[in-house]
């Protein structure tokens, strides 16, 4: 299956736009992901400390055993490397490291329309650890690990108010490597590439504890692991991103990299993943991302285009339309600073015949400004 995926990837690459060779190191001195790298798992589920930026990202839709309650969840761990040119002589194990971690967790209760979220910034040490050998994360309220059997992994997320989501996530499709020659390009800058590995469909089973009560939950999840040293190219202000898990067993990932003037960067892309894990992709010139409705946050005052219509030309199936509508309006992740806020929430996917064909997570980042500077 892996071989098949690689072949498809190669096909995708063949029809891609121009190739820009990435340098070995970014302008800040971090290593830059190089092409044709064949990751080895579970080792590559671990941290890649010599690269500037890395994240592990889980989203999914869950429902309780009785089906009465539905939830959306997001758990993200970011790793940000400090200045690679300065040594760190501190003897402190708990505080000495220059590696920083951020933990973002959110739970959307679709039944009660409540949204809980939490953010923590930690330095590597007593409150944040990431294994370099396997998936082994413990960052504030998020922990992830691979049990000895290795087929699934465990994700535990804590929420404000004593809540806890414990999930066992089992891939039902092979892991996907996005981009040309294994590099997902995020802009014209030579360094603006990432290794982007995804489990597009994970069977999720576990428990959710809230208000002292624990309920069994199950559903479908998505996991990204992305490594880069310059996530956004120059002149980019942010991105709109979505992962759709459709009822027919396929998935669609789409993103537009927004330029400072609001236009889509040419490296914006749509990917289709079929039932077997086969991948097809198109770039910006073959899809549109239309903002159908927006929502203004009463907390930060930021306006997000939370209802969107994505229309893309599938190389085989032709024109495909996906209308994304949020299941709750307020799924804004405010964080500790208003200009860091973003909207990330559970949505339903509706086709051109107005039928609900699946569920999605939509991420709208960089609407508060300043994101580009932090991720360039």
């Amino acid at each position, binding site marked *: 299956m892996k071989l098949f995926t690689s072949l498809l990837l190669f096909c995708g690459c063949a029809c891609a736009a121009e190739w820009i060779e990435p340098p070995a190191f970014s302008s800040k001195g971090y290593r830059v992901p190089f092409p044709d790298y064949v990751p080895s798992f579970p080792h590559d589920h671990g941290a890649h400390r010599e690269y500037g930026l890395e994240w592990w990202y889980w989203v999914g839709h869950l429902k309780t055993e009785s089906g009465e309650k539905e939830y959306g969840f997001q758990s993200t761990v970011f790793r940000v490397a400090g200045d690679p040119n300065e040594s760190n002589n501190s003897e402190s194990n708990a505080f000495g490291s220059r590696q920083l971690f951020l933990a973002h967790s959110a739970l959307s209760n679709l039944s009660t329309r409540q949204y809980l979220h939490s953010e923590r910034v930690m330095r590597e040490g007593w409150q944040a650890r990431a294994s370099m050998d396997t998936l082994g994360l413990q960052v504030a309220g998020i922990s992830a690990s691979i049990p000895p059997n290795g087929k699934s992994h465990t994700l535990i997320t804590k929420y*404000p108010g004593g809540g806890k989501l414990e999930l066992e996530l089992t891939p039902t499709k092979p892991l996907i490597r996005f981009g040309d020659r294994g590099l997902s390009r995020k802009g014209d800058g030579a360094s603006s590439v990432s290794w982007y590995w995804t489990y597009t469909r994970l069977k999720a089973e576990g428990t959710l504890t809230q208000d002292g009560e624990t309920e069994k939950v199950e559903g479908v999840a998505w996991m990204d692991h992305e490594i880069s040293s310059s996530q956004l190219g120059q002149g980019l202000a942010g991105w709109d991103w979505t992962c759709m898990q459709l009822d027919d067993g396929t998935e669609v990932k789409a993103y537009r990299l927004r330029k400072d003037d609001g236009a889509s960067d040419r490296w914006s892309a749509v990917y289709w993943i079929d039932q077997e894990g086969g991948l097809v992709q198109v770039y910006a010139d073959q899809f549109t991302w239309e903002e159908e409705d927006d929502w203004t946050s009463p907390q930060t005052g930021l306006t997000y285009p939370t209802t969107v219509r994505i229309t893309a030309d599938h190389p085989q199936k032709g024109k495909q339309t996906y209308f994304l509508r949020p299941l709750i309006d307020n799924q804004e992740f405010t964080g500790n600073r208003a200009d860091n806020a973003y909207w990330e929430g559970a949505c339903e996917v509706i086709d051109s015949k107005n039928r609900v064909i699946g569920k999605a997570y939509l991420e709208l980042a960089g609407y508060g400004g300043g994101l580009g500077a932090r991720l360039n």
Partner: protein
Amino acid sequence: MYFRSRLQLVWLLLTRTTFRHWQSKLGHYLLLLGIVSVGVGAFNGIRQASRAASANFGLFNQAVSGQSDFLIESPVQRLREQDLDRLGELSTDPDWHLIPVIEGSVTAVDEATDARKQLRLIGLDLLALGNLPTLAQESLKFSDEDDANWYDWVGSESEVWVGQKLADVLNVSVGDELSFLASGHLAKMKIRMILDDPNGNLPDDLVLADIPTAQSLLSRPGGLNRVEVVIDQIDRREDSKYLSNIENRLLKYIPANLRLSPTQNRAADRASMTAAFRLNLTILSLIAILVGAYLILQALDAAVVRRRAEIATLRSLGVDGSVLFFTYLLEAFVLGLLGSVVGVGVGQLLALGAVGMLADTVNALYFATSVEALDLTMVDVVVGIVLGLLFSMLAGWLPARDANQTPPAQVLARGDWSPGFTWLRNPKYGVGLLLLGGIFLLFPPYLMKSGSNMPVGGFIAAGCWILGAALLSGHVLVILAKWFRPFCMSPVARLACSRLQDGSSRHRLAVAGLVVAVSMVTGMFQMIDSFRGTIEEWFDVRFQADLYISESGVTGAGNINGIDPALLDELLKDSNIRYADVMRVCNAKPPMGVTVLAGVDIKHWSDEARQIWLKKPGSIKLVSGAEPALVSETFARRFGVLKGGVVELETPAGLQKISPFGIFCDYGNEFGMAAVSSDVWMKWTGFTRPINASLFLHDLSRLEETRDRLRIKYPGLDIRNERELRDVALGIFEQTFQATNALSLIGLAVAFAGLLLGLFSIFDESTQTWQTLKHLGFSTPQFIWAAGLEGAGIGLAAWVAGALTGLALGWLLVFVINVQSFGWTLLWTVPLESILWFGALLTGVGLLSGIVSSGYWNFRRR
């Protein structure tokens, strides 16, 4: 209607007669108001100053990180980074933030390594601070630079942040290097940024650093002081149910060797630690108001006498006694009210002057503190006014009653006749109070939360004795006058003696007011002298080493970092050092309050080191299974092991038992100290850091050379010989009694002012007598001399009564209050020479007051 008309009458009398009297004696009443205001001011000032100086949480990081809700501490108030790993489960909960803190003192020095300013270095995880809700709101930034580099300072080794106030004091700007001493090292730190502090919350001695930087600067790798817990939903701080729920969740995962407590308990703990100190000051601050009350009593009584003809006329016109009673009581009320209102302001001024002194004392004796902004609360205003009114009304009660009860016909018939207060002439009240005081001495002390004892019985006894002595002092005046009379040859002297021997109420009240101040001042000075004498004796015996090593710049209990162990090990390799007595200390947690656990060379301490032994080593039977310890007298008294026994102390290594085998006298702190062997101390605490070392040299002839050589080699260490150490210790000692001395002097000044006022009233009241004498040929100078001698007689009588009472108070302070409060026995020293000089001063001031007041009175009569 009836009541209303009577009230109108009282108001009419007050405005039409009383205030006219005030107008005619404006200076007199202004002085009286001044006395009341100083009395109220002294009390309020000390109250505010001691609150500002000692009631802060001592959590200096909170100027940066904001208020915390809970504290996680070890029994010895030191943590290691390994302890954080054991907080794993707690560190992942989004409902709170854990803030590890390391703190210590450093001394900013100039190029010649001379101290510029003592600074408090606070190490925080500056990165994690960004998670705090308050910090996120206030946007306290640690970097001026572009967002892209917001975390570049993480891992910087010597960069620090300071507030604008400190930058101004040290005249530094961003990028400057600052030399400082810490833990025995001379080092440099670079100013990364001057923190924007528009509200002026950052103390002017606060230096902020990232935790690894602070650990490195303080030579405490892996060391921390505590972890603070801040709840995420700070708007629910008032929700006790929510806080209780959070506390329960925290407690579920607190490791066995650590303790969790609400932060607000710390303020209460600290308040209870300094409770005895503050109570002493409060009681002292009452001298002035107590003396003031006597003066109001005296002044209003004099007013009643002066206005007797007027009272008689009013009574004849049908004004009944109760109206007069309320009029005089209202006069006292107005005096009290005006004096108190001014007193609240005076208190604010006095607090400004006293707060620094008190903060120094708290720093030296108790814990690190900084002066909080003086805060005049509504409670302060109310307390001050109520106090002034209470004393004024109490003092006004008797004269008012006098005015009410005097029959008009009798008064009109007898001119300036004054019956005076019969209770002042009756010794049974005074004797009764003295006896009552004796009974209160039998009361056991009250055990406070901090583990300290409050000698309530002792304080009440002191109060009874002072009041009793004041009541009896009139008799002393009469007896003295009687004794002196045969020696008086001149008519002037005989006149003065005769008037004193009459012992009018005015004379008696004047003496009584002075006696209150004199006895308290004599008692306090005696206690301070005894303390000083004891400390000197203790030094002579205890400090026999040749050189003493400690961390440079550290002068009190609140600033101890200790010496870098590696540095001390290196120093001890000096060829001229024969033996080093190395001491390690930390706080330990007994069943109640806090105490000090020391690690020492126990064999040296018990066999060779000289001590003032209360119980020699070996004279107390050890309890098997417990660690042998030498304990201080204070410790032995606090924990009831004067005759041996076991005390359990919480340590990072669990609950440990110690059993004293010797008790030594120690005056270092009032919480007591238990000394175990250094090995055991290090095992129990997990620390190695020494606090000081006493060095014994091979070649004493090279003492100065060795000292100077070590000073040059180790500029961060304080290296002194015995004489130099004694000077420093006595300096701290004097500092701790600054406020006491100041309050005693304020009380005395009020008493002197009162004497002047009292004498003026006496002369005013004796108008007819003076006129008769003048007709008989008395000249003005003779009159003034007679007045001077009268004043001198009052001063002398006040001294005799006050000094005798003061001696008794001295005994009480040394043998009861100090033993019960602090658990140490002082050598009772009676500063006879000082007391004699004080007597001469009082007599002289009395003489001068007599001359001045009579001269002024004479001037006004003309």
